[in-house]
């Protein structure tokens, strides 16, 4: 390739000299033996399906304007979510080393067990595959909720569905990211779509205000997160978790480097804490939940938290486990503040969406207990909680989206007075989901809280477990208050005058959420068995394969450029500048 450029003969003399010098150092053989990193495409199919599905949907909707309607959009989104879920199953089989006959491609070139692909940028392990499946299912359920919501609001546009899928792409990238920059890209893909989802309702000024607030604070936190990555890069010399863990396990960091890494960890924790809305980084969440369209909130509360917690576990527990003694106290403070702050502030709310926002802050505190444990037990607790929480919270917001009625504005607690008499089915569903959020036995919330507390106790932070259980009692009060309002208070002037119509799609979503919550609550064994096999690991990527065809390997190309570029900027070392 370099020879061809030289043959052109039109390059400035300096550049030609530079190229020759690179040629001399790199050697002709180096260029000929350029190799490409191994890409396990089969493991990337779930991501590709989501991304292509979103882009195709947008294209189709623009080309066939007027000929396809909201029904098609919803169907497509659900289909894409389901296909993504199904294509993740063989990846799970491969990671767990199941029978090869189960796979529908030849796995000869890929060994079973967790692995890294794309030159170590994406990790494929039980953790990432399980959460990919969870996100795909969350997309399906959210699309159902969104369908009923959009029909009532008279929104016949495709954008919300596309944004749902694109945001899920970011989430899936985040749960598998083995490189901090890839994690950042996933985070931004996820967030940017959600900023727009929050500002989606053009009729309510609150919605745009929510979008703007979320955007400004989200961008602020992303910048901190990125600055943290820069610090880690400066301290360890890499952004790849594979290299970072290698580096940290073989080198003892002293002085400046250790300060850089600690600073980087602190900044990244701050960035994550914004996304999961942990106190004191929670200020945006009640406002955004209150203002954003309720169907968007269901997605925001579930998938964004799943992805952010996945990134947190992978970076902190796996990547920086050698620094656990340094970051655990930070997470303990965040957990205590979120648990206590979320529960106490929720009690004084009069708006159900804000109340649920604070309750999700207190849920984040519980999940932080699992992360803070920094153990396999803790990771299991995080996964169980994320699965349970996703379905509880989507179901709860689905109910809220129905009770909000046309205009999406009736969210005061007063609107729920006597709902049990007017819409018994809806009130019963909400009651069940609220009890699950409170952690009553026979609901998934009970086991989620149970495992989180056990993980905290096992990790020698029993005091944290005590705080968590006390705050759960306070939180139970507010859920029960809502339940009492629905069943034992006479209907008020904001209560719907007659039974609320539950759209079919939202009804399906509610049934699914209740079924999952009840199933996990009665027999948690299937979930815990799956979760046991879903530990996050960082695996060395396979060595690049030399393929002699002259394809350029990115690493080597960058290496060549690096020698040329760094030398040129550093001055006086290359023949090009030295000769003048």
């Amino acid at each position, binding site marked *: 390739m370099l020879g061809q450029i030289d043959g052109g003969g039109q390059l400035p003399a300096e550049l030609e000299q530079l190229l020759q010098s690179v040629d001399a150092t790199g050697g002709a053989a180096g260029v000929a033996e350029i190799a490409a990193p191994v890409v396990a495409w089969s493991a990337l199919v779930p991501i590709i399906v989501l991304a292509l599905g979103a882009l195709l949907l947008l294209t189709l909707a623009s080309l066939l304007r007027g000929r396809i309607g909201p029904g098609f959009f919803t169907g497509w989104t659900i289909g894409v979510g389901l296909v993504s879920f199904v294509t993740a199953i063989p990846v799970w089989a491969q990671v767990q080393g199941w029978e090869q006959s189960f796979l529908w491609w030849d796995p000869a070139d890929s060994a079973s067990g967790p692995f890294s692909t794309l030159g170590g940028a994406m990790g494929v392990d039980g953790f990432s595959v399980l959460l990919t499946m969870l996100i795909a299912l969350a997309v399906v359920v959210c699309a159902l909720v969104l369908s009923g919501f959009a029909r009532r609001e008279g929104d016949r546009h495709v954008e919300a569905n596309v944004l749902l899928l694109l945001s899920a792409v970011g989430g899936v990238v985040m749960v598998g990211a083995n490189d901090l920059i890839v994690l*950042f890209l996933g985070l931004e893909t996820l967030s940017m779509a959600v900023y727009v989802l929050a500002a989606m309702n053009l009729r309510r*000024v609150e919605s745009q*205000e929510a979008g*703007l607030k979320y*955007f400004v604070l989200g961008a602020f936190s992303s*910048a901190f997160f990125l*600055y943290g990555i820069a610090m880690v890069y*400066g301290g360890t010399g890499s952004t790849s978790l594979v290299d970072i863990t290698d580096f940290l396990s073989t080198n003892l960091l002293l002085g400046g480097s250790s300060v850089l890494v600690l600073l980087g960890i602190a900044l990244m924790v701050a960035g994550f804490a914004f996304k999961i809305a942990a106190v004191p980084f929670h200020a945006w969440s009640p*406002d955004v939940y209150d203002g954003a369209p309720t169907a968007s909130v269901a997605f925001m509360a579930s998938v964004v938290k799943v992805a952010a917690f996945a990134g947190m576990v992978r970076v902190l527990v796996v990547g920086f486990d050698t620094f656990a003694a340094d970051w655990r106290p930070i997470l303990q403070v965040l957990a205590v503040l979120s648990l206590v702050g979320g529960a106490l502030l929720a009690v004084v709310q009069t708006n159900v969406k804000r109340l649920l926002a604070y309750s999700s802050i207190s849920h984040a505190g519980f999940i932080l207990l699992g992360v803070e444990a920094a153990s396999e037990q803790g990771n299991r607790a995080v996964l169980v909680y994320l699965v349970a929480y996703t379905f509880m919270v989507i179901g709860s917001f689905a109910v809220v989206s129905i009770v909000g009625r046309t205009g999406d504005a009736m969210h005061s607690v007063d609107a729920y007075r006597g709902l049990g008499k007017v819409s018994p089915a809806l009130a019963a569903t909400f009651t069940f989901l609220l009890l699950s959020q409170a952690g009553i036995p026979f609901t998934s919330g009970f086991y989620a809280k149970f495992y989180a507390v056990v993980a905290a106790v096992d990790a020698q932070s029993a005091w944290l477990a005590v705080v968590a259980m006390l705050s759960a009692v306070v939180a139970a009060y507010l859920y029960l208050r809502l339940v009492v309002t629905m069943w034992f208070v006479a209907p008020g002037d904001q209560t719907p005058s007659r039974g609320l119509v539950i759209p079919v799609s939202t009804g399906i979503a509610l049934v699914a959420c209740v079924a999952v919550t009840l199933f996990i609550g009665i027999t948690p064994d299937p979930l815990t068995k799956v979760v046991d096999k879903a530990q996050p690991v960082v695996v060395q990527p396979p060595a690049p394969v030399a393929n002699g065809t002259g394809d350029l390997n990115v690493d080597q190309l960058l290496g060549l450029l690096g020698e040329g*570029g760094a030398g040129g900027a550093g001055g006086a070392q290359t023949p090009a500048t030295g000769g003048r």
Partner: protein
Amino acid sequence: MRGIDAGYLVLSAILFSIGAFGLLVRRNPLVMLMCVELMLNAVNLTFVAFGMMLGDIAGQVIVMFVLVVAAAEVVVGLGIVVAVSRRKPGATADDIRVLRG
């Protein structure tokens, strides 16, 4: 380490702080967007400086990714700002406070 003093790191830390401070005190949504850009570009400078110190090209490659992300972020941000100001021309962050913080 190459012979680059920590001056660039200090400079980028200062730029980052200016951006963060500006985002917190300025009320004009457009200026707030510019502050976000300033923060991201300060991080870019940090990456390049570290890349030079470590003799590693990755630091400069990352800048490309960040530039793309920053561009996309501005597009989304401006879209939201336009949506807000259509409804309320000349709105500042203080004007839009229907939601109580």
